[in-house]
């Protein structure tokens, strides 16, 4: 498939193997700036691994072997000078909410501090802005000093999103963010994402096909580490997507 060289993210011939097990088998696609790309697919299809390759946390996995290239703004992620800066350009929200065992304030201020920001005023401003963006500010503004781990699951997930925004990323990746939270919170976060789209590029990995349909501009269907189809929602979720498998998956015939 044709890769647009002006895209925010370009992925070309990406392969990933854990030892002898291939998790991603040659995937190529691009992500345009300020779009929401939905990624759907059954378990073990390589969705989470793909995100790990993108922000290079795959480096921490023993025995993982990556080939192919991923470029962010035209720069190969495996050649970046400062990998921590790369990770700060990409916000990552994990499937299970992880409130770090420190205060709510410190949870959000952790990343800016790691980036070298020490001014109290700037940190305060960021913490408030990110918590507001994650629709959590009103609930926690009076207890910023209490432990992040003591929040409810839904609150912790929004805290995770606030933390992912705290280093002002250009790209935001969400990995099945709604599996641990209730539908009402999910809807609130979805609203937040629609707002954020104006500012950042969003990759939304989800196993709820309807969520991708609601939110995404384009959707990509991955299966067993292979890209089955990528296209505008109007095509992917139509009665006649390019691949028959896509139709079968979306209509619930399998998966």
């Amino acid at each position: 498939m044709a890769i647009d060289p002006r895209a925010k993210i370009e992925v070309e011939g990406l392969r990933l193997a854990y030892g002898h097990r291939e998790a991603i088998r040659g995937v190529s696609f691009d992500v345009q700036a300020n779009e929401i790309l939905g990624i759907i697919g059954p378990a073990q299809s390589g969705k989470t691994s793909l995100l790990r390759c993108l922000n290079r946390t795959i480096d921490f996995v023993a025995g993982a072997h990556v080939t192919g290239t991923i470029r962010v703004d035209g720069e190969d992620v495996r050649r970046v000078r400062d990998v921590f800066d790369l990770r700060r350009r990409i916000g990552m929200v994990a499937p299970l909410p992880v409130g770090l065992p420190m205060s709510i304030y410190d949870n959000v201020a952790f990343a800016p501090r790691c980036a070298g920001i020490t001014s109290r005023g700037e940190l305060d401003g960021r913490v408030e802005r990110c918590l507001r963006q994650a629709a959590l500010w009103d609930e926690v503004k009076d207890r910023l000093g209490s432990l992040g781990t003591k929040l409810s699951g839904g609150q912790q997930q929004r805290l995770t999103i606030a933390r992912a925004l705290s280093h002002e990323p250009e790209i935001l990746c969400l990995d099945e963010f709604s599996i641990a939270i209730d539908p009402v919170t999910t809807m609130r976060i979805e609203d937040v994402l629609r707002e954020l789209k104006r500012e950042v590029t969003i990759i939304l990995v989800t196993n709820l096909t309807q969520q991708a349909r609601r939110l995404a501009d384009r959707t990509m269907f991955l299966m067993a580490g292979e890209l089955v189809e990528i296209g505008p929602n109007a095509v992917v979720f139509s009665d006649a997507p390019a691949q028959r498998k896509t139709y079968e998956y979306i209509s619930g015939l399998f998966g």
Partner: protein
Amino acid sequence: MRTDAQPRVAAGPDGRPPFAETAYGRRKLRQESAARAVFLAMTLLMVAPLVAIVAHLVVEAWPALSLEFLLDVPRNRMTEGGIWSALVGTIYLVAISLAVAAPIGVLAAVYLNEYAKDTWFNRIINLAVINLAGVPSIVHALFGLGAFVYAARFGFSVMAASLTLAIMTLPVIIASTREALAAVPTAFREACWNVGASRWQTIRGVVLPNSISGILTGIILQVSRAAGETAPVMFTGAVLYKAVERGSLFPYYLDDQCMALSMHLYVLTTQVPNVAHAIPYATAVVLLGSVLLVNAAAIGLRVWLRNRKRW
């Protein structure tokens, strides 16, 4: 299955009320309490010695126990006086050995748990660390004698003895620190990496603050172990008797030989004739008391920190 053992909701065909006691039921009950009694007896037989020993030692030691006993030096061929020389020697040995072993051990555990990749070399190191924790103390004494006293030419000295103790405690500190580090969930680390924290920022920000209690408990327990050890210091730097000033805080130099409480107790019991009856008992009580106190402190710390667990 015996029919009378089955619970019935209404009166059975034999007209007896439901849940009536049966011979089988009574036997089961008896068996139940017998089992409890047997295992309780076994436990008590194990706990009783601790209480009995401590009580006996304290009773026999009572006439000699006083602040003066702690501060005075042994007198009249060690048959009278106190234990200051030995007490301060033990404090020296333990303090120096931990000052060496604790930082190296903790940092090494951080290295092994957070930095080292899973290679065959590191697996061998892990195996060595685990097994060295079980090596007899007399083998450590041999090592200290060969390595520090002779090979490194420290001679029989505080230095050689404390380094021997340090090497003895090192594998245990590494093992307990690793356990504490491994108890911090990986998800926390991944969350930090995802926001662009470096390895060290992750360790400092999340891993160490949440494992420090376990690390400290491990180190404190080594204080008591090092204080109680006899064999490793006996052949590397501790002596039968050394004249020091009463209550002196700095009686030994690093290249001096010193007295140690554990060895003093051994010497008093086996090699000194006509020692006043209560003195060895009092020495044992001081050694036992300080070791148990340190352990109790570690246990208290652990309980306190467990109650304010943060996730």
